[in-house]
């Protein structure tokens, strides 16, 4: 228990933790602020203004239309030919603008809709928090190894595996707390924008439940990222190890493989790309469409599809988690601390 307490103190004393948390909070605050600036609630005044704008636009096109018809008729009176090609039969007089083409909606300013736009914002939040958690997790144990702090600690607490797992537990607890707090603030901020500066949409209990599930999936991703960063840095005994593997995985998977698949024309190449599984995890499933199977020249075609489910994602992510934790435990148990 005393160790856990010490580790909590250590985590929040670290500059990396403090700086990253500050930057993250400031960075995240930009999102709701941007929505506040852009969103305008559709009050009766705004709607009336949009209605007026639609009418004005309609009137304007009617004037233009009548001018055109008049021009055509004048030409016809001068005896010009080929006018039907340019204006249509009867000088196009039958195809005048219709009032219903000009709806108020087209002239309404952007209005934030909480119900529709909150779920994608959760994905953004989870992605940002996951990256931060990865770095904080990696540096939390990486810097300890690298600076000799780990060795000092082991002189006090010689049971290596409990020491490592306590540190990991503290990290996960802290990141979970962070996710819950930031998630709550995030939800409150966007709800307030919807309520006072936009539109909440129809919020049923089912909608809230689905928000909660998305939030839970996002939180799981954040904790996974923290654990992976921690374990990789502990295996490599250096923060850079985790960052290197992380960046390497992104470069290889998201850039290298994509280019390679493009070159060798792999069917459903996205199946082998990491982010596919992350998205599928978050969105419950992801449909990959194989456009390449279609010969567009030969007419319409329904391309074959491949669906990645969140269950598949969870197997993959779970395997990565188990491997990383096992590797870290094995390495601290077996390798000399020098």
């Amino acid at each position, binding site marked *: 228990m*005393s*160790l856990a*307490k*010490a*580790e909590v*103190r*250590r985590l929040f*004393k*670290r*500059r990396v933790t403090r700086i990253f948390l500050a930057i993250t909070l400031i960075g995240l605050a930009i999102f709701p602020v941007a929505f506040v600036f852009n969103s305008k609630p559709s009050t009766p005044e705004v709607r009336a203004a949009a209605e007026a704008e639609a009418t004005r636009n309609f009137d304007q096109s009617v004037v233009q239309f009548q001018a055109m018809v008049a021009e055509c008729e004048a030409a016809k009176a001068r005896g010009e030919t080929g006018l039907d090609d340019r204006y249509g039969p009867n000088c196009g007089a039958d195809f005048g603008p219709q009032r219903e083409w000009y709806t108020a909606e087209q002239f309404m300013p952007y209005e934030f809709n909480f119900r529709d736009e909150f779920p994608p914002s959760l994905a953004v939040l989870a992605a940002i928090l996951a990256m931060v958690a990865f770095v904080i997790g990696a540096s939390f144990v990486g*810097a*300890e190894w690298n*600076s*000799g*702090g780990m*060795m*000092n*600690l*082991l*002189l*006090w*607490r*010689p*049971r290596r595996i409990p020491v490592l797992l306590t540190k990991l537990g503290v990290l996960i607890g802290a990141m979970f707390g962070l996710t819950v707090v930031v998630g709550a603030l995030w939800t409150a901020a966007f709800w307030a924008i919807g309520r006072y500066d936009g539109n909440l949409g129809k919020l049923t209990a089912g909608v809230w439940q689905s928000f909660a599930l998305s939030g839970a999936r996002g939180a799981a991703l954040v904790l996974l990222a923290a654990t992976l960063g921690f374990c990789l840095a502990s295996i490599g005994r250096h923060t850079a190890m985790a960052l290197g593997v992380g960046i390497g995985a992104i470069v290889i998977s998201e850039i290298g493989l994509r280019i390679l698949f493009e070159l060798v024309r792999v069917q459903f190449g996205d199946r082998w790309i990491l982010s596919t599984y992350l998205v599928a995890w978050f969105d419950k499933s992801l449909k990959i469409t194989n456009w390449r199977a279609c010969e567009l020249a030969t007419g319409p075609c329904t391309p074959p599809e491949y669906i990645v489910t969140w269950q598949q994602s969870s197997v993959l992510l779970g395997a990565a988690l188990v491997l990383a934790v096992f590797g870290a435990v094995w390495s601290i148990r077996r390798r*000399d*601390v*020098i």
Partner: protein
Amino acid sequence: MPAVLEISGLEKTYRSRRRGARKALDGFDMVVESGEVHGFLGPNGSGKTTTLRTLLGLITPNGGTMTLLGQRVPAALPHVARRVGAIVESPQFFPNFSARDTLSLLADAGGVNKQRVTEVLEQVGLRDRAKERVGTYSLGMKQRLAVASALLKQPDLLILDEPANGLDPGGIREMRTLMRGLAASGMTVVLSSHILGEVQLICDSVTIISRGRRVAYGPVADVLAQHAGAGVTVKLESADDLSAAAEVLIAAGARVTPEADRLVVSNVEKPAWVTRTLAEKGYFVSELAPVKVDLESVFLELTQTAPVAGQARQVDDSAVAAPAQGGWGV
């Protein structure tokens, strides 16, 4: 007196994929009695740090047995760790924390009263600088912090790997007083050091290691006595004859170290033998005295690491002891 630390037949081979295996400990034995200050001496790379790391559970030995405070380690290490304070080879600390934070985190982790942090900071002379980042500390200040971290637990056994490394003369003297004081209060201190004058002043007994094996051990006085009389210094009437005389003695089986105006002769039974052997060849001794041994010269002799003019000694050139009785060596 019961042994506080006992090592027998300790073996450690470092393996690395690229450079293969390196045998750092080769059947090493060591005994430290309760309440003494014990010097742990040996040339660079002889295995001192390896021994201490093994003892503290940081590295896994390939063979041998160890006990700390009467309990077998590493198995019982979690039970005895609370009573063993240690620093291992210029310990590093997380550079962005202050000394006080560093110590108070350790105190938290080990369940030590926070009051101790202030006490040990005072004790090692870092009181006024305790709030500064450790990264900005000088070598000696870091070393003082390390000693503070080892003292924090109020251990029964204190293990210090080169604690004087980087200390100023005043600091070395303070360290000396500190250690004598700790020993007087009943703490056992194991101290590895290269400053043999210091060791001779502080330590009750020593263990000397060379190439991973023990080459000498026992109370300082005994170790010195075993080697006193082993050598004599010889001056000749004519200093020009020194090198010729040295050849004569070597030919007769003595070991000779020439110095500027004298010869240091060892491996002789009686000083008179030197006088007679030289007189037979016509060299006349003007002064013959037993070598006044100090720990340094005993160390150099035992480990065979005395510098030889015109030769650069390489790190692993040192004495190889026959394996001790009951040891695990070849």
